[in-house]
């Protein structure tokens, strides 16, 4: 076999995925970066100078950082004890809570913004209820900093918990027992042993929270995007508005603004890696990036479940304290859902504590509305296609990485960091500019959007499948299969796939949930493709012929119900093990 042939066969299985990733992720981002230094006069820093010269942009940068920091702070403060408590639950309740957090983490975007408006808005459920009790409640205006921070946290805290959960497994119960034997108090144990061990992971989680928060676009757009005063000026909002508003110089300015976001995200991610490496140094005996890393990362099949089931029996924290915290969390998560449910059956809701009357007409009629139905069908087809395409590309790639050529792995890990760290809005803009250069006829089309979604969801599927393959030990499995004379195709179909179905199921769930609620990418790349988030934003922000909020409540709840149902199915497949493969310590350190 020639050198070329050997190289090719070493990469063959991963090639389709790598090509897609190169075309729809790596190249566009590279071009975006390059273009922020190129003006009509050649290489120049003009675009940057002009940007940083504008008080508006400076303020946006500051506000974005402040909002990111606020969200990171509260996510850490609330998420850390939550993650600890969940990690010490017995298998059943833990699976239930994980399912809830999983769905909550993916129930972001326009639907969540809508939920804020109808719960805590000036005429939201909570506000009206408090007023009817005589409290003159004035919740933060929907376009204010506080409103955005509260709404972000609904998705951010669950994500933090999912991310921090594997790390909680590293504090062993034996250590606490040992500390007790040495007559340490619980406080002393946490101060001297527990927190120092967990600190790098917690701080790392805070940094990731920060990165996510500064990159959020859909929620910010739905809450503050149409404001004439933009009290909460954010980089993402400014990017989105510049793209949408300015046909003349918009793309170039938005590109430079995006590079600001990229810089912030890369710095935060670098900090995260550093912290996680530090945290892992205690587990150094083996290769530092392997033992606890894998352990932390092999979510669905191995690590977390094993780590936490050991800790099950003894509740460490006072029972009432734990129950109280869980009750508060459940209430907070439940309130917006209750508001959605009430809105979906309200005839009209003026200014009383409860709707003026009730009807099922919205449920019966919501899908008779052409636009709503069209949006639901489009989103379902887009999510389903993305999920299957991504699985079909990722599975052979990961298999190749594990059994044929380890270098595939390095390439995949690097590429996976892009959608993980960079806001989808920035990726969308990069794709918009890049497609304009190389394939203008694709612009604004469904296929381009689909390719974009495959590129941004692949890391989540990749981590899930990779974790499952590690746990299943596919290397040994395929050696055994080959020894029995199986062809590679037979090995993959008959041996590997059945053994990684937990990874397939949770990866599929992640891809599906990501796409069905995604607003930033579609709004930048193909806003005429009428997905559920596009339709929802339209209904929420419509200034004129408003169809009312009821159909929006029906569709939003239906999506939520669908996600719950999927989570249930997935948890059935994974037999109650951890659903989410959080892109956790291992990947970042690896």
């Amino acid at each position: 076999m020639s050198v070329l042939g050997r190289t090719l066969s070493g990469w063959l299985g991963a090639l389709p995925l790598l090509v897609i990733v190169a075309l729809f992720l790596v190249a566009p981002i590279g071009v975006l970066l390059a273009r922020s230094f190129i003006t009509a006069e050649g290489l120049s820093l003009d675009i940057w100078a002009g940007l940083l010269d504008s008080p508006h942009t400076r303020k946006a940068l500051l506000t974005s950082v402040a909002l990111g920091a606020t969200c990171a702070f509260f996510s850490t403060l609330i998420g850390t004890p939550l993650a600890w408590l969940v990690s010490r639950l017995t298998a059943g309740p833990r699976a239930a809570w994980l399912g809830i957090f999983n769905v909550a983490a993916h129930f972001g975007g326009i639907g969540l913004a809508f939920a804020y408006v109808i719960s805590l808005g000036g005429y939201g459920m909570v506000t009206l209820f408090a007023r009817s009790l005589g409290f003159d409640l004035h919740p933060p205006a929907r376009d204010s900093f506080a409103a955005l921070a509260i709404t972000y946290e609904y998705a951010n805290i669950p994500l933090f918990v999912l991310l921090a959960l594997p790390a909680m497994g590293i504090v062993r119960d034996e250590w606490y027992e040992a500390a007790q034997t040495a007559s340490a108090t619980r406080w002393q144990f946490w101060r001297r042993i527990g927190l120092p061990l967990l600190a790098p992971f917690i701080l790392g989680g805070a940094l990731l929270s920060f990165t996510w928060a500064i990159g959020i676009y859909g929620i910010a757009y739905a809450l503050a995007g149409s404001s004439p005063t933009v009290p909460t000026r954010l980089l993402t909002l400014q990017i989105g508005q510049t793209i949408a508003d300015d046909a003349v110089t918009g793309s170039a300015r938005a590109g430079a603004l995006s590079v600001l976001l990229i810089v912030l995200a890369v710095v935060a991610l670098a900090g995260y890696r550093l912290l996680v490496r530090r945290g892992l140094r205690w587990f150094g005996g083996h290769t530092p990036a392997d033992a606890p890393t894998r352990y932390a990362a092999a979510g669905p099949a191995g690590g977390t479940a094993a780590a936490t089931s050991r800790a099950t029996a003894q509740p460490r924290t006072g029972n009432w304290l734990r129950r109280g915290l869980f009750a508060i969390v459940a209430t907070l998560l439940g309130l917006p859902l209750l508001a959605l449910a009430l809105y979906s059956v309200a005839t009209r809701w003026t200014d009383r504590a409860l709707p003026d009357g009730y009807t099922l007409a919205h449920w019966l009629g919501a899908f008779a509305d052409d636009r709503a139905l069209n949006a639901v069908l489009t989103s379902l087809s887009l999510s389903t296609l993305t999920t299957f395409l991504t699985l079909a590309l990722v599975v052979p790639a990961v298999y190749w990485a594990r059994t044929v050529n380890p270098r595939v792995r390095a390439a995949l890990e690097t590429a996976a960091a892009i959608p993980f760290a960079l806001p989808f809005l920035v990726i969308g803009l990069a794709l918009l500019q890049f497609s304009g250069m190389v394939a203008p006829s694709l612009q604004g089309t469904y296929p381009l959007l689909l390719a974009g979604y495959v590129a941004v969801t692949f890391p989540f599927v990749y981590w899930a499948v990779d974790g499952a393959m590690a746990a299943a030990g596919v290397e040994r499995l395929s050696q055994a299969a080959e020894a029995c004379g199986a062809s590679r195709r037979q090995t993959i179909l008959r041996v590997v796939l059945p053994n990684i179905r937990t990874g397939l199921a949770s990866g599929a769930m992640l891809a599906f949930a990501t796409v069905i609620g995604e607003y930033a990418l579609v709004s930048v790349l193909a806003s005429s493709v009428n997905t559920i988030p596009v339709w929802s934003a339209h209904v929420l922000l419509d200034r004129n012929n408003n169809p009312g909020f009821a159909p929006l409540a029906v569709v939003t709840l239906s999506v939520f119900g669908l996600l719950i149902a999927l989570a249930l199915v997935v948890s059935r497949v994974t037999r109650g093990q951890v659903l989410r493969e959080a892109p956790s310590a291992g990947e970042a350190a690896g």
Partner: protein
Amino acid sequence: MMSVRRPMRRALLVMLVGLAGAACGGAATIGPGAPDPSAAAEQARTFVTYATPNGWGNYGEQFTTFCMFNFGFDCNRPERSQAEDILSAEEVQKFDAEKNNPGAIVADVGILFIPQAEQVHTLADFEPPNAGLLPDGLHGPGWVSTFVGVPAFLVNVGFLESHGLPVPRSWADLLNPAYAHMIGLSRVGVSGSGTYSFVAMNLAAGGSLEDWQPGIDYARQLVPNLTSQMSMETFERGEVPISVRFDFNHGSNLQALRERGIRFELIVPSDGSVYGESTLMMNRYDIAHQDFGKMFMEWVLTDEAQAIFAKFGARPIRSVVGDNRLVVPDEARANWLPDAAYANVRTVDYEQLDPGDIVDIWENQVLGGS
């Protein structure tokens, strides 16, 4: 400072546009030739328009009447109207962004944004023969003025009274601190109504198209009272009881409000407002619907079409400008405010107004300073 930068920006643009033009050279665009009616009848089954919902400018009735008259069937399909709520600047951007997959043949856009559309070269090279009914400057290749709007206040009187608040009658009244977060406004420099509202504020405060300082000082005081322009539902409940919009903007909404027994009032500010022209622009790239588009461009300037605009509450362009003004029949004026309300309304020269500059002023001097 801005005036120095602008010519440079323009020069750069011309270069870029030239480059782009050279790059895609052969792409076919809509030329000036007369439409073919039988082709138009076919195209009437599939055309799409932006920012022209049934309830805006009466475009629903407009398309129905036009197609019944010319082709004998109603072409106002629900899918006809897309991107209903996008702002003027966004429309221009959309035409440009979609040039390889044109999404719509015509769109309603504020006249201030026509120069942007000309810069990025998205307008068809066609001008209807009857465009000459309008004075120069109100029509051009690929666009004609259709009707005028005046920034005005839609006020939920019932809500304000029940909260012991006065009804604002002038721009100066809007500064009352009691209206904190109560005044809805669209985005300045991006939407037609938001931009013209800022122009009107500036003139009322004593400024001119060259001197924005009075408007900046005024708007800085107004900012704490402003909030997002919201749906009629939020207006109705009193969440945003004062809405600054074009006077005609409320046509279809007003009827619904009346039916629900909401007490409201439409007020043209006593310290002055301005006429803002709405136009219909035609997408140069949507060749597949060019005959339909050309016929419709001609239609909107006919007496019938102008009366249909009037029915919705807007003053049709031919009734406010030109030598031989159109007399709008009484029954079409039912939704109009009395002429006396417009005593202090002025026309402004849109060519002196660059929305890009107004965005700069609004973002960096009004908001940036706060």
